[in-house]
C-alpha cells in the first residue's frame, strides 16, 4: 500500500470501470483518491494475522430455493426499459468480434 496513485493508474482504473472521464476529472480524482488511499493506510496499524475476513454482516450458510418454475416476465416487460431494441432483442453497437471472449 501507500505508494502514490498516479494519473496513469487512474486512467487504467477508469478503463477497467468503463468510465469515460474528462482530463479535469482525471486530475481531480487522482488527487482525491490519493487522499483517501492515504487515509485508509491507517489499517496497516492493525494486526490481522489469523483473522478470518468477514464478507457478510451476518454470517449464515446454505440458503437455497427449490427448483420450481416461476413465471418469467413477458418480453415486452423485459425490454421496456432498454434504450434500444428491435422488439425482441436488446440492441448494442456491433460487438467487435471477441473483444472480451468469455464462456
Amino acid at each position, binding site marked *: 500500500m501507500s505508494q502514490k*496513485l498516479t494519473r496513469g493508474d487512474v486512467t487504467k482504473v477508469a478503463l*477497467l470501470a468503463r468510465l469515460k*472521464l474528462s482530463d479535469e476529472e482525471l486530475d481531480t480524482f487522482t488527487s482525491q483518491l490519493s487522499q483517501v488511499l492515504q487515509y485508509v*493506510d491507517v489499517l496497516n496499524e492493525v494486526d490481522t494475522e489469523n*483473522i478470518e475476513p468477514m464478507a457478510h*454482516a451476518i454470517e449464515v450458510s446454505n440458503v437455497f430455493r427449490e427448483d420450481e418454475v416461476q413465471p418469467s416476465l413477458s418480453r415486452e416487460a423485459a425490454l421496456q426499459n432498454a*434504450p434500444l431494441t428491435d422488439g425482441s432483442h436488446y440492441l*448494442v453497437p456491433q460487438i467487435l468480434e471477441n473483444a472480451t471472449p468469455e464462456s
Partner: protein
Amino acid sequence: MSIVGKTTGELLDSMNQGELSSVEIVQAFLDEIGRRDNEVNAFLSVRPEKALEEAKEVDQKISAGEQLGLLAGIPIALKDVLCTEGETTTCGSKMLENFVPPYDAHVVQRLKKSGVISLGKVNMDEFAMGSSTENSAFKTTGNPWNVEHAPGGSSGGSAAAVGANMAPLSIGTDTGGSIRQPASFCGVVGMKPTYGRVSRYGLVAFASSLDQVGPMANDVSGAATLLEAIAGHDHRDSTSINCPVPSYSDSVDKPLEGLKIGVADEHFGEGLGDEVRKSVENSLDVYRSQGAKIVNISLPHSKYAVAAYYLIAPSEASSNLARYDGVHYGYRTENFDNMIDMYAASRGEAFGDEVKRRIMLGTYALSSGYYDAYYLKALKVRRLIRQDFDQAFEKVDVIASPVTASPAFKIGELSDDPLAMYLSDIYTISANLAGLPGISVPVGLSGNDLPIGLQLLGPAFEEDRLFRAARMFEKETDWKTLKVS
C-alpha cells in the same frame, strides 16, 4: 393539533374512533407537501390521485368493518431507491431517470399489505452515496429546520419529509449511517435494523453486505410499527434472516428495567462538537434518572471503521453498479465510437462525481495486486470491529453515542472535500460493518436551532430493545425544548 403534527399512533387512533378518515389524513399531508416542499424539495415524485384513491379504499374497508393492516390509511414517503412496479425509480441518478421497474421491492409489497399509502418517492444521494443528499442528480433538498443546511443523507429526502411534517413516516436505507445521520439532522427517529432483518429484494444495491432498509418516523412508536410492517424473512433475499419478528409496537412503551448503557471513550474523543457532546451527556442523565446504569466500555477498533468501510463499500458498489451500462435499461449516450466507448461514455455522462469516485476507488481496491492489501485487509478489520461489539454486549444492553460530530452542516460546506464528508460517518459506520441495529432519536437542539440525535446500538436482532430504550427518553422529555448552547 393539526393533522400533520400527529404521530402515527394518534392518526391510527383518530381513524379508529372515526374522527378522521384516511382521505382527510392523506389530503392534509398532500396539502402540507404543496405548502412546504417547494422550499424543502424532499419529493422527487408525488402521487396525489393514487394516494387519495387508495385512502378511499381504506376508508371503505373501515366502514365495512374489514380486517385492516397494521398501518392502514397512514401516509408514507418512500426513498427513491426501492423498486415500485410501474412507478419510476431513479435512485437520484440520471442513469435511472426513466427507469420503471416491472416489479415491487419486498418492502413495498409489505407496505401495501400493511395498508400504508405512498405519497410519493423522495430525494436521496445518487445511489445512496453521500451524507447530504447534495449528490442527487435532480434537486438539492433542504433541512426543514433551516433550508440552508443539509438534511443529511443519503436518506435526506426521507428525513426531511418527516421533519417537515410532509409525512408521518418514511422509508430510508442505511449503508453507513444513511438513515441515522439524516434522522439526527432533521429531528426525527430513524432505525437501521440488523442486517438481514428486512429483505433487500428490490432495494437498488449500493453495498450489498451493508445495505439495510429501515423506518423513519416523527416518533419512536411510529418507527417501531413501521419496522414491524416491513421486517421478516423473504426467500428472494439469501441474506434475509429467518427469525421471528416480535411486535415492536406492542412492547415499545415498556421501559427497560435495570438498563445498562455502554459508553465508549472512542466515541467522545477529538472531533466531537461541544453541543453534541452536551446534548448526549444530558440524555444520559435522563436515562440515569430512570434507573439506568452507564457503563464504560471500549471499542478499540472503531477508529478503523471509516477506513475499512471506504474500502468495502466502494468495492461492492463498483461491482453492483457495473450493470448500468446502457444496454438493458438506463441511460445510453448518443455519442460513441464502439461498444466499449458506448459503455464508458454512458456511465461517464450519467453518473455523478461521488458515484464515479466510489466506483473508481472500489475498482482499484479489487484490482489485481491491491486486493489483499485493501479489500481483504478491510474485511479482516471488519471482523475485529464486530468482535469489539460482541465483547461490549456481554457487559451492556445498549451502546449510546453521538450520531454525528455536529448538527447539520450547511449545503455546500463539505461538497469539495470527499474525505471530510466520509469522516462525518465516523459514529454510524461501525454498526453497518458489524451488521448491528442502531437507532437515532432526537435529544436536543443546538444553539442555532438544529436538531441533535442520540445513537443507541444493540446486539443483532434486538431492535425491540432499542425502540424501548429510545422511547424511555422520548416519553420523559420534550426534546425540542432541550436547547444546548
